[in-house]
């Protein structure tokens, strides 16, 4: 059902590095689930509006004011779980240099 190539593609979209073994295992497991899901094709949904929000809540707004200072994180707290920082910023992998 799902080719290894397709699974590898999905893994790339999801930014999930997979081992060769995982690729094979997931191919069959995902195929099983996707096969099961096909049952939805039995249902006629032509005139049905989708539900994305079950309680009908819409457009919840707040006043256009800055949040109180106490409610914002101090820089050192925001950074404290990061794998790499330079004291004030998160250090991220380079985006432009490695031609991907």
């Amino acid at each position: 059902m799902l080719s290894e190539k397709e699974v590898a593609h999905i893994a790339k979209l999801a930014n999930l590095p997979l081992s060769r073994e995982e690729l094979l295992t997931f191919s069959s497991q995902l195929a099983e689930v996707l096969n099961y899901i096909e049952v939805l094709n039995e249902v006629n949904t032509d005139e049905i509006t989708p539900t994305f929000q079950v309680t009908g809540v819409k457009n919840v707004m707040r006043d256009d004011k800055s949040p109180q200072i106490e409610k914002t994180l101090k820089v050192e707290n925001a950074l404290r779980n990061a794998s790499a920082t330079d004291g004030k910023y998160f250090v991220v992998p380079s985006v432009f240099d490695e031609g991907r």
Partner: protein
Amino acid sequence: MKENLYDLTIKEIREGLYSKFSVTELAASCLERIEKTDKALHAFLTVDREGIINEAKEKDKELLKLKGDIFKKYPLFGVPMALKDLFTTKDLRTTAGSKIIENYNPPYGATVVGKLKAAGALIIGKTNEDAWGHGSSGENSDYFPTKNPYDLERVPGGSSSGSAAAVASGQCLAAAGTDTGSSVRLPAAFCNLVGIKPTYGRVSRYGIIAMASSFDTIGHLTRTVYDNALILSVTAGKDPLDATSVDKNVPDYTENLMQSLKGKKIGVVKEYLVEGVDKGVVEITNRAIETLKNLGASVSEISLPHTKYAMACYYILVPSEVSSNLAKFDGIRFGKERAAFGAEAKRRIMLGTYTLSSGYYNAYYLKAAKVRTLIKDDFDSAFLKVDLILAPSSPTPPFKIGEKSGSPLQMYLSDAFVCPINIAGLPAVNVPAGFIGELPVGIQLIGPQFSEEQLYQAAYAFETETEFYKRRSSVI
């Protein structure tokens, strides 16, 4: 007074605190119980020993000064509670049951945690769970599986596995959990507890690590209905930090518990009475129906015609939302790199990425969202005929560790009775309904949105009549 303080219910705490025992003694009793039982149970990932002892001492000092009805001001004063490790706790390690954020030290806390603390509760620790909430048995924890206190070779249910095991074994008096497709009600059923899944939007999700944002609800597990209702009165309510929380009045859910069931119309779902449900579960469910009839309710059969599509609908929508929510774990701002995700998380991320991807979105996600409307409409129609729906919480009693982990699909199907409720955003409560040998079996009562008061009333009547909550484990 019971022999061990950890055996008390929250209601009983109110009767004995200060006069018969201190908060420190109560906390110590729970800590001792954890010490004695957690090597076998594996309910906890983090126990905040120092934190709770210090808190307890502070509370005892406060007690001396507070006169009159302290419980009016602090309904959960001195109550040792555990939190599922999806709840972000400021300065207390939070892992979501995953290795990805194994050492995450949150710089802020969840709204609900703040509310519980403001009500006087003591946080004893963070409980084990299926990583990220992905599971119905506890076996998908990246750490170790929690055991069922009633039978150590069996699962306690999931994903709030540790929370259930902790309360059922007396390691704490109540524990918070989340329910996205089963995760409070199933462990409650497997561990002989009362577990509430509130209406979507009843309780703030702010600070609780998101699984599926249009399904997640914040619930809790206790031994009795009164205790459960008490806690919901504390946690429910609109939160400006959660735009999906609903601006509806929060009643005192304990106030009107003793309502007669006379005239209540209860529906039993035709499509749930199928092959594949364990005979013992069917028997217990039928006995529960008789009990409710004897209490004055009338029971009739109703139909939820789209039941057979619920699991497929769920397993498109939820992994889709999961793939989006787990995208934030980039290994940069917090946590390890994405290769460290466990197998089930990877599966769900992959499934969700596929169903949302260009070319497939219409066939999968949009289609499932339309089926969601049909499933919700089924319930809405049913509630025109009945006040409440009754169903088993699980098609089987607690199963053995390892029994279902071979096939992810098999595991998914154990949620057949519980996840349609999340699709529709309805409230439901599990209440202990009997035993098959040593193994607890629970039933769920399901109601229209924001009918938690009604649910608690029915659950209370049933509990008072049957008293199954009194039966503790004989093995631990």
